[in-house]
């Protein structure tokens, strides 16, 4: 989409970097994600994609650079503060709360914007009941949107793999994000499910008005739905552009296929 360059930049990441000991995991990573944008982040295994996510969500603290979300500084903030500011994520290896029910997984994420204090909880005040009711309504509504409502009371660990992936996305959406980071949402899904996922990622973007940044190894999916793609290799951004530009970039081709670098498609 060409119009995106004109749209308002929502998530503005400038030259962030982190090194673990001598290993420079990510260097000078920049990203300008506009409102409602759907960007992809790709690269061979070990390129630093998930590290970028961890930097954006505060799991790791960047050594250098700047991160801003609609003008507010996020650099150096703690993960829960970043989530509260509006960046939600899913995990590559699913991290649901296995012994909570599906509904509770979603409610847990929803309570970020629906707080009531300890005293209200202990005294079961009116405020407690309203807050819990709002939470429950909101969570069930989300589950209904994604067609998981009849599994609301099942343990999260009892869901099928595909449903667990879906629940991760629902849970992330329950925090009311403006930016959604999806870490390999298609991993482990069959072709049929992948197709549905591609459609639903677009739907999510439109319906919830979130900007999406997607890590994915499935090139078909990425090229199909992403407006712009950032390619990482050894922690360095080697290319940024539209799917077409990226596909024809010699450096990208080298990174994936070329001389002696173990690549994976």
């Amino acid at each position, binding site marked *: 989409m060409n119009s995106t360059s004109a749209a308002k930049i929502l998530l503005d990441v400038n030259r962030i970097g982190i090194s673990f000991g001598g290993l420079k995991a990510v260097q000078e990573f920049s990203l300008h994600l506009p409102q409602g944008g759907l960007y992809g982040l790709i690269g061979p295994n070990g390129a630093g994609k998930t590290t970028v996510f961890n930097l954006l*969500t505060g*799991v790791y603290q960047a050594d250098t650079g700047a991160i801003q979300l609609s003008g507010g500084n996020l650099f150096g903030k*703690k*993960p*829960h503060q970043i*989530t*509260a500011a509006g960046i*939600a*994520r899913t*995990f590559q290896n699913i*991290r*649901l*709360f296995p*012994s*909570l*029910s599906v*509904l*509770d997984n979603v*409610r*847990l994420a929803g*309570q*970020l914007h*629906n*707080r*009531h204090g*300890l005293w209200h*909880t*202990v*005294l*079961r*005040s009116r405020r*407690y*009941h309203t807050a*819990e*009711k709002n*939470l*429950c*309504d909101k969570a*069930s509504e989300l589950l209904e949107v994604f067609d998981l*409502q009849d*599994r609301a*009371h*099942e*343990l999260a*660990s*009892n*869901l*099928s793999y*595909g*449903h667990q992936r*879906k629940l991760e996305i629902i*849970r*992330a959406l329950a*925090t009311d994000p403006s930016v959604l980071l999806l870490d390999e949402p298609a991993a482990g*899904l*069959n072709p*049929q*499910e992948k197709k*549905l*996922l591609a459609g639903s990622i677009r739907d999510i973007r439109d319906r919830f008005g979130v900007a999406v940044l997607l890590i994915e190894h499935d090139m078909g999916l990425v090229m199909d739905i992403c407006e712009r793609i950032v390619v990482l290799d050894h922690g360095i951004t080697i290319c940024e552009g539209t799917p077409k530009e990226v596909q024809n970039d010699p450096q990208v081709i080298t990174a994936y296929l070329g001389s002696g670098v173990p690549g994976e498609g």
Partner: protein
Amino acid sequence: MTQSANRSGTVERTGTAVLPWGANGFFGMMPIIVGIGFAVLLHFVLPKSIGPYYSRIVTDVGIAIILAVSLNIVNGLTGQFSIGHAGFMTLGGYVAAFVTYYVSSILWESTTRHGGFLGSGEWLFLFSCIIGGIVTAIAGYVVGLPSLRLRGDYLAIVTLGFGEIIRVILQQTGKVIDPEAVKSATWSQIIPPPVGGAVGFDGVPKYTNLFWVYTIMAITLVVAYRLKSSSVGRAMISVREDEIAAQAMGVNISREKVRSFVIAAFFAGVGGGLYAHEPGVIISPNDAGFQRSFDYVIMTVLGGRGSISGVVIAAAILTALPEFLRDFAEYRLIVYALLLIIMMLVRPQGLLGIHEIWNLRRKPKSPPIAEEVK
């Protein structure tokens, strides 16, 4: 996405109105009022019908439940492994005993019981238990801080160390001042605090009875259940399940950890106050030791992490059983160890796992969600 195979599983229904004691009373006070009624009943009926010996066991059971259920907030809900709970209990007990003893001495110039049932002496006793709880909660905050950086075994060692520190400090305290001499006490008698040193705090007025124990137990249970079944409890459980994911969902894990330590410590302190004032008990520094802490850990492990009713059952059994097996008292620890090993092999999730006893027979069906929260 796909239609997955039908699986069944029981579910911990947090936040739903499945409690036998309904959640929606007069300002939500109903369950506590019922609890107090139950305590009054026990207090006036039990000693007459089963005699003082068994009443004493029932009292001990009540105190053990307060301690085990409060420990379960840290160990079961938030998943932080604390083995210093007896340290909190003993600290609270000493503070409460100190207040009762010396305030009685000053007010009434004696430390014998003052006033009858619900008389002025008993209110002083309640007040001092709460002071004990508050002081212990502050200690809980201090002990909770390392939990932000330490995990698993390392945190366990810190909490173990806390209990030992309390024990050693209490051993260094001064002699108890006679009630008549309190008003003319010199500074050298007051510092270090005159709470009896290694021999224990003798002469504490014996106010603890079934009524107070079961009233406070009811409050502890209601608070624990309400925590567990609310947003606050879900946040705590999420810390137990997966800290990274919890943070990503906006849970401030530092706050949840410290908060659970503070709440648990408060109730441990109040429970300690009850213990210190129990007839036939002389609270001593050794109560803060590892062994008693371990007793409570066993209760929570046997009951099931996070299951309040499971822990209540385990606490009741493990407190009453040694009394009925007095002849084999020396073998108690061997039996405990065996019991733990067998449980770990056969039922690692504890007696009830994460469930409550009233959820066990419930088949997982999907009621209309609108009815979930009234």
